[in-house]
């Protein structure tokens, strides 16, 4: 029997009379790599905020087993503040300062070896994203949740970041949940795809979801054509 780390039952969320999420049900087994896709305003970030405990006035039941590490979108960082890389990572273990010893090793893992004293404000988008990943990992979470990690990162940086995620997952036996706008990448890299637009449109192994069914949700053709390529390739291989 599967060991589920997250179980969501009948989850609904409204702001005043506006429905943000409606009757969502899913289970995420330990070690899964889930990509959540959906158009703007689909409630993806709201779902993440509910999972990390930032929004609590929802309807339904959420059961999270284990601790969560969280990599947010960039916007919350004030790059003007002279915070050094090691201090930034330290924020992730604010309640247990003993973890400070892990910082050099962790920076090595995310490819920022020896950058402890670099100012965060001088780092590139990709470096900052990897630093946020180090901050999320320092408390050794069981589940890692990422909200659009590709935002503000160039193409090279994106590819490197996804590789890093795969490696970290296999090394640490993590469960990863990632919101992304890069549908092609989600279909290639994630084991499971969840498509959200207020309700859960589909949820299953990436190779079993036909991107044609999702076309209506994504007007941006370029984004989903890679998903389609991937789907067709997978199905050819299967035959």
């Amino acid at each position, binding site marked *: 029997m599967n060991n589920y780390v997250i179980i969501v039952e009948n989850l609904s969320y409204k702001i005043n009379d506006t429905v943000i999420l409606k009757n969502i049900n899913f289970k995420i087994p330990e070690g899964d790599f889930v990509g959540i896709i959906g158009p703007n305003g689909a409630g993806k970030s709201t779902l993440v905020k509910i999972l990390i405990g930032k929004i609590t006035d929802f309807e339904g039941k959420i059961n999270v087993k284990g601790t969560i590490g969280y990599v947010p979108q960039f916007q919350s*960082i004030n790059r003007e503040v002279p915070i050094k890389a090691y*201090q930034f990572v330290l*924020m992730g273990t604010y309640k247990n300062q003993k973890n400070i010893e892990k910082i050099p090793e962790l920076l090595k893992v995310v490819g920022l070896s020896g950058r402890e004293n670099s100012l965060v404000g001088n780092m590139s988008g990709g470096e900052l994203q990897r630093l946020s990943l180090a901050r999320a990992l320092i408390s050794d979470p069981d589940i890692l949740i990422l909200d659009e990690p590709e935002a503000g990162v160039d193409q090279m940086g994106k590819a490197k970041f996804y590789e890093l995620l795969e490696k970290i997952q296999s090394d640490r036996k993590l469960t990863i949940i990632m919101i992304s706008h890069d549908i092609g990448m989600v279909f290639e890299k994630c084991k499971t795809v969840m498509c959200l637009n207020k309700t859960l449109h589909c949820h299953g192994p990436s190779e079993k979801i036909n991107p044609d069914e999702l076309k209506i949700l994504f007007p941006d053709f370029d984004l989903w054509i890679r998903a389609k390529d991937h789907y067709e390739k997978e199905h050819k291989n299967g035959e």
Partner: protein
Amino acid sequence: MVNEIFQYDFLRIAFFASLLSGIAAAIISPIIVYKKMEFIGDGTAHAAFAGLAIGLFLNIDYRFISIITAILFSLLISFFSNRNKINENSAIGMLLPVFMSIGVIILSKSSTYVQDITSYLFGDILLVNLSDVWFLIFVIFSMAFLIYLFRYEILFFLADEEMAEFYGVNTKLVRTILLILISVSVVSIVKISGIILLGALLIIPGLFAKKLSRSFFSVFILAIIYNLIIASIGFLLSYYLDVSPGPTIVLASFFAFLIFSFIKK
């Protein structure tokens, strides 16, 4: 020539007090600038005016009452912005004249109205006495101690408030502590710089330090050095040109920053 100033007790005290108020303002300045709380600093100064008026009217120490009115002002802003979702700047814009009006009405009932209103609006360094100096020293050490004690919390709060909260930093407490520090700092320097001119002392050193600092610690040191130099130059200039010290210090600070902005882009 400088010796002349130090011959007189009241000038010595005034000079020393302007240096100390430079430090008291500089300690909080980087935090105000990084968190874009400039308007709060200014508003708090106006709120302190109501406290000054109550103090004068009741003939009791103005500092205690001013700290209370300044903190009350900050808490009301938090209340309106959290509870009623009113933009923080709108709340300040609304409350600032309210506190000023309370001050003016109370002062109009007091016999000292005319002479005192100008000295508190624009500062009167020559009114400063030894108890103000001791109060400034107390404020500086308390602020430095609190900022040191909460250095990580404040740093995380400034750099990434949302994530600091996620990782367990009590950001509401940090915000309240900072608002109290701003209030106390404002009240300690209001007699020297005046309510209207106080903003320059609170904001310019932070802007200067932000451009040069390489660490969170150095940002405070640079802001303090800036205000110490400016307060000294401004004070000496005002003595030799025979003009009011408060506005001279403000202008010295602004022109120094202007020159710095041309040198360092």
